[in-house]
Structure formats: structure tokens, C-alpha cells
């Protein structure tokens, strides 16, 4: 769990102002209070992107879940979901933080209502509806923010993408609550007995683990006594009392799906536990934008999940999974394309890079593509030289695109590429897939 301190917020706000209004950067450094009209607050921060103005862009806001903070989105990484979203043309990306209230229920003034104010400001300033990307309880915070009586954000969300949101609550949390209180677990979804057995096994395995980080299932133990530890139980009154979803709001659900094995000697229980805290059924209970995306993973052993790596399907790992990131980015691009009438691309386009360059990377999406060249003569590193691609695809400016070191490690075969000399490649747009990302080719 990372919680940002006050000094960090001031610094971030100053950076935000510099991005949104460079002329006021000096003023921002001297005056930490954000200027009106930027929407920037201590809770709402822009993700560094390609320097686009908020006006006319489609704002994409990332909101975290329980026992977490905006730091979970890793905005400084060009590989993160938020970092990549910020690079989409026509988008400004934002994070909303309620770290200090993340163990409180979504009705807290600094969660639902504050998020509503943030959404309303972004929609007003951009003149576009806002895309919300929510992890876990962030989806329920959005439901409250846009639906509570008198919400300033009613009608301001154009699409919601939820990752592991417990629309029906958490069966495992209910089973754990019942276990520690010695009471009956009450009604649980299909496989409820397995949840009770897993809850007890998990509580046992977590004994003696001092740090309940969100990198393994033991973090659930740390939320049991909090308000959300009650509110997020399976089909809790708090969830049932949330305001109804706005009719017609597209909601794309993303869920994890992993089976966990709880063994004793020669016998083993193997049951599907969704992303562990949130069952598959709960995470996909409100999907109005087509089929939910389910990330399937190999079965985990109980101790593997606790002591080793619970894998990409685990609740807190889902937002960092490359497959999930690709789905989210594709959904954002699709929305932005529709909202801004994206430019059409030619049938094919040339890609050239200087002779001292040895690596070319292309980012493909939908109807477009971006290209960059990386100098690998010197050791590749973050901040390696990035060369302007000129004007491709109707004037997309790649000047601000800089390589990310990890892209250098993701070579793939140049299937679909055509080359007539070592420094020129082209790629027919028919081979572009909706959410294919970096494809690099070394000369």
C-alpha cells in the first residue's frame, strides 16, 4: 500500500500545472494552490502524457480500490495502464486518489462525492464525457458518484471499465468475517462451502506473516475490521443500497479467473475463486458493453499464492497484467475514436530511420500506428534517444514519444512486415489488430 504524503501532493500538483498550462509553471512552483479551472486537486492529478490540453480531449480517470492509492497505477511507467492511456491521442489521463479513506465506504465525502466533483469538472472543462477505469471498489465508488441524489456528475460518464469490481460483494471476505467471528457465513454464492474452507486455510497460512501488503491474499486480513470489511461482504446491505446504474451507460467488466488448490495429504480441494477476493460472478455481474473480459490463469496452490506469486489473475495484480492493459486501452481507443472521429490511415505507410539507428518500434492500434526509433549503439535505457518520426497518418506528432526500456525487451517476429531495404519497413494496415501494442524489429 502506498500512500502519498502532503509534500508529494504539492509536488504533483506543480507538475500537473506545468503540463496543463506551461506558462503558469513558475507560478505553480511558488504557489502550490492549483488555479481554478484545471480540475487539479489533491485527489485528482493528471498523468504525464503528451501535453495535450484538457479542452477538447476525452478525460480518462483511473480510480483505485480499497486499501490502496493512486500509486497503484504506476503513472510514471510507460508500460502501465495509465501511462499508456496518457499517450493516446485525444486523451488526457487522470488519477483519483482517496488513499486516506480507502478503508471507508464509498459514501464518504472524500470518496463518492469528491469523485463526482472531479468527474463533473473534467467533463465541463473538456466538453466530453469522461471514461472511468476503476479497480475493485473504485467501480462501486463510481456507481455512487454518478448516481446519488444531486450528484453533479450525473450523465458525465461516457463509459466505465471495471477491473475486479465486486458488484455483488466478496464471498471470501464474508467467509473470513464469519470465520474470525465464529458465526455462520450466511448465504454465499455457488461453492460457498469451498469459500469457507479457503477462508480458514488462508487465515491459517497468513499467521506469522507480518506485512500484509496487497501483493498476496493476506492483505484481506488487514481490512476485516474496517468499514469496507463489512460493506464489501457478499450481497451486503451497503452494496444493495447503492443508487441504480444510469440506463445505457456502457460498462465493461474485466475479471480474473483462477483456481486455488487447498490440499491435505493425498486429497485436494480445487475451486474457482475468480481473482480470489472477488468471484468471477461478482466481477461480471454488471456488464453492459458486450461480453466481459475474463483473464484466465493456471491453478495456484494455497501456499504458492501466499508465499510466492499469486499471479496475474490475482485481484491486485490484474491492473498490471499486459492482457488486461491491452483490453482497457483498446476500449479507450474505441471510445475516443467514436467521440472524436479519428483520422483514417493509409493502406500502408513507410517507416524509415537513420542509419545509426538499429531498432524500430511501432505501436499499433485500431486504424492508426505510431513509430519510434531507438539508438541501441549505447546501452538501452530509459531516456534513450527518441527520434521524431515526422508526420505519419495524417499528422500525428510523435515528437513527445520516448522509448521505454521494457519495450526493448519485447522483440517479436516481424510477421506482416515488408522491407525493401534495411532501413525502411512498411506495415499494411490490414494486419493491425485492435489492441496489439509494441512490436519491435531489430535491424
Amino acid at each position: 500500500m502506498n500512500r502519498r504524503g502532503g509534500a508529494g501532493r504539492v509536488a504533483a500538483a506543480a507538475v500537473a500545472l506545468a503540463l496543463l498550462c506551461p506558462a503558469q509553471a513558475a507560478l505553480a512552483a511558488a504557489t502550490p494552490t492549483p488555479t481554478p479551472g484545471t480540475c487539479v486537486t489533491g485527489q485528482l492529478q493528471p498523468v504525464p502524457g503528451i501535453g495535450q490540453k484538457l479542452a477538447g480531449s476525452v478525460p480518462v480517470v483511473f480510480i483505485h480500490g480499497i486499501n490502496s492509492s493512486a500509486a497503484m497505477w504506476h503513472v510514471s511507467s510507460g508500460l502501465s495502464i495509465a501511462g499508456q492511456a496518457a499517450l493516446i491521442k485525444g486523451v488526457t489521463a487522470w488519477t483519483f486518489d482517496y488513499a486516506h479513506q480507502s478503508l471507508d465506504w464509498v459514501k464518504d465525502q472524500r470518496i463518492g462525492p469528491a469523485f463526482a466533483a472531479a468527474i463533473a469538472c473534467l467533463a465541463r472543462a473538456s466538453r466530453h464525457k469522461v471514461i472511468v477505469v476503476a479497480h475493485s471498489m473504485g467501480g462501486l465508488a463510481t456507481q455512487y458518484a454518478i448516481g446519488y441524489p444531486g450528484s453533479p456528475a450525473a450523465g458525465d460518464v461516457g463509459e466505465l471499465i471495471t477491473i475486479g469490481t465486486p458488484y455483488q460483494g466478496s464471498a471470501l471476505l464474508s467467509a473470513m468475517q464469519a470465520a474470525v467471528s465464529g458465526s455462520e457465513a450466511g448465504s454465499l454464492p455457488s461453492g460457498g462451502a469451498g469459500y469457507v474452507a479457503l477462508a480458514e486455510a488462508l487465515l491459517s497460512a497468513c499467521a506469522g506473516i507480518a506485512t500484509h501488503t496487497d501483493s498476496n491474499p493476506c492483505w484481506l486480513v488487514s481490512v476485516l475490521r474496517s468499514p469496507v470489511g463489512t460493506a464489501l461482504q457478499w450481497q451486503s446491505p451497503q452494496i444493495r443500497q447503492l443508487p441504480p446504474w444510469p440506463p445505457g451507460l456502457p460498462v465493461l467488466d474485466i475479471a480474473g479467473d483462477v483456481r486455488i488448490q487447498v490440499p491435505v495429504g493425498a486429497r485436494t480441494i480445487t475451486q474457482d475463486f475468480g481473482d480470489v477476493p472477488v468471484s468471477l460472478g461478482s466481477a461480471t455481474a454488471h456488464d453492459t458493453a458486450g461480453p466481459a473480459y475474463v483473464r484466465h490463469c493456471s491453478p495456484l496452490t494455497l501456499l504458492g499464492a501466499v508465499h510466492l506469486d499469486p499471479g496475474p489473475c490475482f485481484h491486485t495484480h490484474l491492473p498490471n497484467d499486459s492482457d488486461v492493459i491491452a483490453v482497457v486501452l483498446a476500449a479507450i481507443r474505441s471510445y475516443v475514436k467514436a467521440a472524436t472521429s479519428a483520422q483514417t490511415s493509409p493502406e500502408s505507410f513507410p517507416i524509415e530511420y537513420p542509419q545509426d539507428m538499429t531498432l524500430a518500434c511501432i505501436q499499433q492500434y485500431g486504424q492508426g500506428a505510431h513509430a519510434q526509433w531507438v539508438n541501441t549503439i549505447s546501452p538501452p535505457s530509459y531516456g534513450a534517444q527518441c527520434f521524431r518520426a515526422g508526420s505519419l497518418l495524417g499528422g500525428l506528432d510523435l515528437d513527445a514519444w520516448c522509448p521505454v526500456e521494457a519495450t526493448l525487451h519485447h522483440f517479436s517476429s516481424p510477421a506482416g512486415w515488408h522491407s525493401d531495404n534495411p532501413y525502411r519497413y512498411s506495415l499494411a494496415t490490414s494486419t493491425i489488430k485492435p489492441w496489439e501494442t509494441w512490436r519491435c524489429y531489430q535491424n
Partner: protein
Amino acid sequence: MIVLTASVAAVVAVGLVVAVLAVRHTPGTGTAAASSGAAPAGGAAAVRLLLSARGRSALSPELNAVLPAGQLFPQGTTFTAAPGGWHRAGAYANLAGTLREPGRAAHRAEIGFVYRHGRWLVTFEAVA
């Protein structure tokens, strides 16, 4: 270090050891207690029962209800607790050690427990 086995002789020997341990560690029912060290007598007894022919009676009722039917361990299986291998938080605990099944290589294992109605019940046993 304690060695737990299904054989009668070993049970007697272990009983002597855990009797000493019981003086130092008496399980409580508090929910906030956290400790580590050697297994208490009740935990050792639960392991003995788990490795016996009546192993399923060592399980928590919730686990026993969903675990596939059948014997859990072959006769002659032993578990050697690691020094300081007992970790407890409230009514839950785990014990690390080495499991030896006849005809198979020994391997590190961990056993989970819940303290209920005055006795420790097993919640899992897994390769560590």
C-alpha cells in the same frame, strides 16, 4: 524438535515431548494474540491425529465437508516440526516442518490450524 508419527511407539515418545511443550504454550481463544515458536501440545496432538488412520477427524468440519473422500496419509507418515516453526495469529496458526511418507522423499510442508472449542483443528497441509 519434535517428531510425530502414526506408530504407537512414536506417539508415546512424542506425547512426552509435547507434554513439556504444553507447559510453555497453552492455546488461548483470544483473537489478537500473535506468537511464534514451538508447537503447543494441542497442535502437536492435532498433527498426530492427522497422520493417523483417523486423520479426517483432525480436520475442521468445513474442510472435511468439501475435501474428497479417502485416507489422507499412508500409514507410517511422520512430520518433524521445524524449530520455531509454529506461527499463530489469534485463533489461527501454521506449523512448518518436514513430512516423510513411506517410500517417498521427505519434503518441507506446512500445516494450518484453527483453534475451536478447546482444540486445534487442521485447515490445510501443503508442500511448502
